[in-house]
């Protein structure tokens, strides 16, 4: 049976008009998210993950940012052209967001409980008192001990991990259908990272929330997401199930990413190799494959023409010329199902 989609992003283009010119931050991104599903968007920093996420909630600063074209369909409704007022009604109630740095994403001059209560007062029209009671419940739900006392404290009285829990409480207070977590663990210690991911997993099953987990670290997605979207220079270069991406990756950029993260499976005790080179200039993205300049396998056509999506199975696509039937077969650096 086809699962119901909660979100569909179709050919999204987002640019920033700066003094130096137009930064084409997102250049035709498409993906979807099913109800109660978790997907991950991965890619090096600067590849457009945050811009994509913030475009969904229309949180990019406009100007200089602007959604040039494409559609964002949320819960069956095209929200691309929604007015600010209509977006306000959705933000926080239907979709919530967690940001990278819990140290800076809470208001330092407002008690944590109130920061959680605000959304409830706005969307569920609770009284201040009811909202505070709910806020305490939320703090309890995200595993903060002494929630009664904690609700009355300021963010600086919380540790980093606690603050990220509080952020999750804020984002989930109105029980949104979609949670976007933009590098929720990047700024945290490794042990705290695992706790936060566990909490998100637990809440996902408890509350049936759909999650987009954004990260530049493939290591953290494996047991959280069902599918992975790999982005590079403002485009999706490969997408597929976690299985497909980890064991049958098709795009040289995905290979590079996989080689650069420690993998948990014992067989793969290979050396970590970072991807050499830097991403292309988004002011003037290359005509052909954006990865060509850094790609060991690049061919003439790669510099000439954008590779189109090659389908490997109904959910697995990669935009690389190597997938073309006429392309030479290459030795892949990643051991997977396909090659032994």
């Amino acid at each position: 049976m086809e699962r119901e989609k909660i979100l569909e992003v179709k050919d999204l283009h987002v640019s920033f008009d700066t003094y130096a010119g137009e930064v084409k931050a997102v250049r035709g991104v498409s993906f979807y998210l099913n109800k109660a599903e978790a997907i991950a968007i991965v890619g090096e920093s600067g590849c457009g993950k945050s811009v994509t996420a913030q475009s969904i909630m229309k949180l990019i600063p406009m100007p200089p940012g602007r959604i040039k074209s494409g559609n964002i369909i949320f819960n069956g409704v095209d929200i691309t052209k929604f007015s600010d007022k209509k977006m306000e009604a959705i933000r926080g109630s239907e979709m919530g967001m967690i940001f990278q740095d819990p140290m800076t994403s809470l208001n330092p001059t407002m008690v944590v409980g109130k920061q959680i209560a605000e959304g409830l007062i706005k969307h569920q029209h609770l009284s201040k008192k009811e909202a505070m009671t709910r806020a305490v419940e939320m703090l309890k739900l995200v595993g903060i001990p002494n929630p009664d006392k904690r609700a009355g404290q300021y963010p600086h009285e919380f540790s980093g991990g606690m603050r990220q829990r509080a952020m999750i409480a804020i984002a989930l207070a109105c029980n949104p259908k979609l949670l976007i977590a933009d590098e929720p663990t990047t700024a945290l210690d490794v042990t705290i990272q695992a706790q936060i991911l566990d909490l998100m997993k637990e809440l996902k099953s408890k509350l049936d929330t759909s999650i987009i987990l954004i990260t530049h670290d493939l290591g953290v997605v494996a047991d959280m997401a069902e599918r992975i979207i790999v982005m590079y220079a403002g485009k999706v270069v490969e997408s597929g199930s976690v299985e497909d991406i980890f064991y049958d990756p098709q795009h040289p950029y995905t290979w590079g990413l996989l080689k650069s993260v420690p993998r948990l499976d014992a067989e793969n005790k290979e050396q970590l190799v970072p991807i050499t080179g830097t991403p292309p200039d988004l002011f003037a993205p290359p005509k052909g494959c954006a990865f060509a300049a850094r790609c060991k396998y690049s061919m003439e056509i790669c510099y000439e023409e954008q590779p189109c999506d090659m389908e490997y199975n109904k959910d697995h696509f990669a935009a690389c010329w190597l997938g073309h039937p006429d392309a030479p077969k290459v030795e892949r650096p990643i051991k997977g199902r396909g090659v032994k």
Partner: protein
Amino acid sequence: MVRYIGKRFVISLITIWILATLTFFLIRLLPGDPFTSEKITPEIKANMMKYYGLDKPLPVQYATYMGNLLKGDMGYSLRYKNREVNNIIADAFPASADLGLRSLVFSVILGLILGIVAALNHNKFWDYACMVIAVIGVSVPSFVVGSLIQYLFGIKWKLLPVAQWKSFAHTIMPTFALGLGTLALIARLMRTSMLEVVGQDYIKTAKAKGLSPAQVTIKHQIRNAILPVVTVLGPLVASLLTGTFVIEQIFAIPGLGRHYVVSIQNLDYTMVMGLTIFFGAFLVLMNFLVDIAYGLVDPRIRVGK
């Protein structure tokens, strides 16, 4: 909290003592003596020097002064015969403080509003308009502003009383002239601070909750943007409230301002000392009050924690 206040109090006392000591010796480095300008015979002058104890060695004078100061006695003015320094300050301070307080309220409220309006209209007409006002306010000296409005509103159009300190109408021009610079300073500070805060992550968090732009601005942006403004308030309050020579002179206000200038010109040692200590103590007190106020607006540095 008690310990904190106690510590601050001791530091304040030491500060004021150092200030008093420096002033005591520095003022005596100036050429001449308090009675130079008076047409008196050397005998009378010697008598007067003796009467005020100025003939004794400096260390003795210093010890005597400090001893009296501890009792709260700042001695007699060397210029206004038979008037105590304490008394002169108590007479002149109320007018200065009144003017200063009015200017403070005027400049802080309007400065904040201007800064907020400018920041909310960043790079648009109102931003530029507010900043033009701010630049004028900072760069045009208060005596120019004072004289100009006095001429226009007082003399030419006869809309407001030209000078003196009586009714509310009398207070309008001096308040404006004295407060304009502070207003401009606060407007610029608030604008910068607002623009900085708007880029902070917690503003994005507030928007992601679905709050309206007005709610985001009022509850999250302004509250945090005001913090740096509060820090500059201490010295500002002190300098506004303790009188300014220029404005009080232009508008003939019987405040402390003119004593600062006149007492130095006359080498009225006791008066200079008295004013310096008064101003120093006031400054220290204001900074302390502002620190406490800062703790109220910024929970991170709440004192005593």
